[in-house]
């Protein structure tokens, strides 16, 4: 087995050009608003209450998306030390440290991707939800202090086993309390009809995105996890808009056509794996090639599933948003997470699980409390833990990762006999 000599790569997705177009429109629209001040801009956490912001007339910018761009362009590692020097530890979220570091240094990957954009759009308000972690609140608070802008947020329960009515009510009330101050900032009165329409679009986007990801259950799979991390862009930044809905219709059609024609995302798919944890943004391509070279498709992940909000109900906007944003994997208890992963293993018919232990993201590293061992013992699916990070490449040993992955595939081959 020799991955580096392999020529197998994952199959290109035709819809990518359309995604690039709508993403460019999104960033240029934000840039225009930032320069002309004609429309208010809200910064929002990636699984935060974006629908409320859209319903109140804001354009919405997602710093986590920017953090991921810093990672995938491999700029992050150079930016992180600038945030460390401000007192933000190298051990905390490397989205946060990369993003704040980049701001301090006056750098943004948006300039490279979109000529004419010099800086990130300036916020009129910052809105967080701690459903993912506490770091997002600290991250946004830095900008609020620096830019002297208002910050609002929702504090979500953590390690939730069952999403009870009390929990939903608590989050729903916090969401409703955002309306008045946000409406004052945007100057747009709250319109229940508009709220319903945004939520309907978000739900449709979510359903289509789920359908796209679920195509990976086909054998061979028409899509990879690495495609998912790129094509989830519109589900993150454009949910609640018709553009996102139209895009996922297009992408879903392409994936369905691949299934009909037996087209594999990784030619000669021999092994099917599940990815648990954050992507290594600066190594997306390298990892994609490594696995493809081993005729292995990492085809599904908890991470890409994080933008599925099946609970959204336009007729019950606040409670359903509260439920949808709380029932996410990252918010849940270890027991729930274990059951969830086992269900995914069964649904996607995978041969093994890769757990990424991301040094600076404890909340999304689900191998630190014995999960791989428990899963392996109870359902017999082999698990591999690789050490790395989402953004900080100093925390990655490529050679160790490669040896671990190759050895894991050898183990799967041996099992198959």
């Amino acid at each position, binding site marked *: *087995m*020799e991955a*580096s*000599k392999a020529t197998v790569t994952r199959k290109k997705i035709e819809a990518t050009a359309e995604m690039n177009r709508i993403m460019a429109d999104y960033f240029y629209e934000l840039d225009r608003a930032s320069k002309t001040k004609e429309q208010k801009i809200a910064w929002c956490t990636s699984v935060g209450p974006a629908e409320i912001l859209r319903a109140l007339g804001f354009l919405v910018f997602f710093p986590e998306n920017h953090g991921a761009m810093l990672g995938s362009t491999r700029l992050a590692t150079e930016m992180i030390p600038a945030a460390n020097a401000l007192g933000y530890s190298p051990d905390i979220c490397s989205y946060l440290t990369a993003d704040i570091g980049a701001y301090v240094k006056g750098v943004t990957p948006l300039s490279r991707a979109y000529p004419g954009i010099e800086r990130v759009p300036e916020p009129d308000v910052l809105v967080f939800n701690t459903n993912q972690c506490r770091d997002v609140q600290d991250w946004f608070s830095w900008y609020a202090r620096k830019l002297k802008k208002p910050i609002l947020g929702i504090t979500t329960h953590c390690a939730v086993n069952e999403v009870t009515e009390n929990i939903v009510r608590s989050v729903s009330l916090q969401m409703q309390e955002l309306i008045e101050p946000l409406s004052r900032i945007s100057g747009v009165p709250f319109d229940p009809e508009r709220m319903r329409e945004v939520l309907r679009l978000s739900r449709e986007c979510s359903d289509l995105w789920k359908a796209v990801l679920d195509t990976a259950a086909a054998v061979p799979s028409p899509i990879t996890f690495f495609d998912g991390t790129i094509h989830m862009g519109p589900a993150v930044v454009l949910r609640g808009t018709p553009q996102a809905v139209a895009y996922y219709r297009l992408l879903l059609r392409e994936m369905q056509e691949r299934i009909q024609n037996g087209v594999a995302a990784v030619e000669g798919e021999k092994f099917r794996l599940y990815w648990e944890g954050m992507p290594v943004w600066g190594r997306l391509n390298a990892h994609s090639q490594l696995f493809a070279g081993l005729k292995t498709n990492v085809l599904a992940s908890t991470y890409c599933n994080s933008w599925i909000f099946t609970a959204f109900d336009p007729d019950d906007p606040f409670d359903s948003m509260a439920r949808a944003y709380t029932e996410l994997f990252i918010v849940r208890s270890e027991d729930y997470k274990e059951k969830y992963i086992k269900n995914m293993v069964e649904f996607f018919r995978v041969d093994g699980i890769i757990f990424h232990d991301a040094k600076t993201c404890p909340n999304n590293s689900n191998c630190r409390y014995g999960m791989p061992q428990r899963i*392996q013992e109870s359902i017999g699916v*082999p*698990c591999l*833990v690789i*050490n790395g990070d989402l953004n900080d490449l100093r*925390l*990655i*040993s490529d*050679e*160790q990762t490669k*040896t*671990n992955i*190759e*050895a894991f595939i*050898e*183990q799967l081959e*041996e*099992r198959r006999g």
Partner: protein
Amino acid sequence: MEAGKTVFVGVDIGASRAKAVVLGAEKDLLGYAVERSGTDFEEVSMTILARALEMAGVSREQVAGTVSTGYGRNNVPYARSQKTEISCHSKGCYFYFPRAITIIDIGGQDNKIIKLDEKGRRLGFKMNRKCAAGTGAFLEEMSFRLNIPLEEMDALARRSEDPVRLGSFCTVFSATEVLENIRKGKKVPDIVKGLFHSVIQRVLEMDALTEEVVMTGGVVAHNPYLVPMTEEIIGRPVLVPPYPQLTGAVGAALYAMEEE
């Protein structure tokens, strides 16, 4: 030289040492060679091949197959295929101990714990994180700091009467602890045994030892006192193959034989 005799070669280019073995058709060890890996893996792979073949008394033409492994496995031009060191250590250890085993391999730059079932199938494995604490590199650094030749450490550790306790997470911080112990007047054998203890602790933190334990790797080959020390800590006997440093290369040669 026995004309017509078919042999199989396994080459293990590790981070610290390069090893080659020659196995006969009956899986008998006919020859081997060990060299520093250095910086030119291709060249060292040629050197150890020539030496191992010479010891075996066979020619290049008699080699029916070669598999390479280790950190430099892709830099062996004459290897027909490559396998990771995880697979090769498993294969090599199971050859000597064909039963369910837990393998501890302490290498120059990484440690591994590998678990095999009674049929030799791998159940799982773990490698150390991106940190060389507890590996051969850790002992090399300490021998440099203490100005003791690496090959004398084993004998020194055996003379210890009151070993010191050292942290095991970071080579640099452990070195600071060593200096602190020197200032306190601790004896060198006690410090060296403390270092050995630290290596073992680091490995034992990696995974639970569920089956019979086998220890391999260059560090154990050159510091065999680690074996009784480990036995004492875990309260069980530890098995060691005849040439612990060559186990990965033996496994590679066995794969070459299977491929043939």
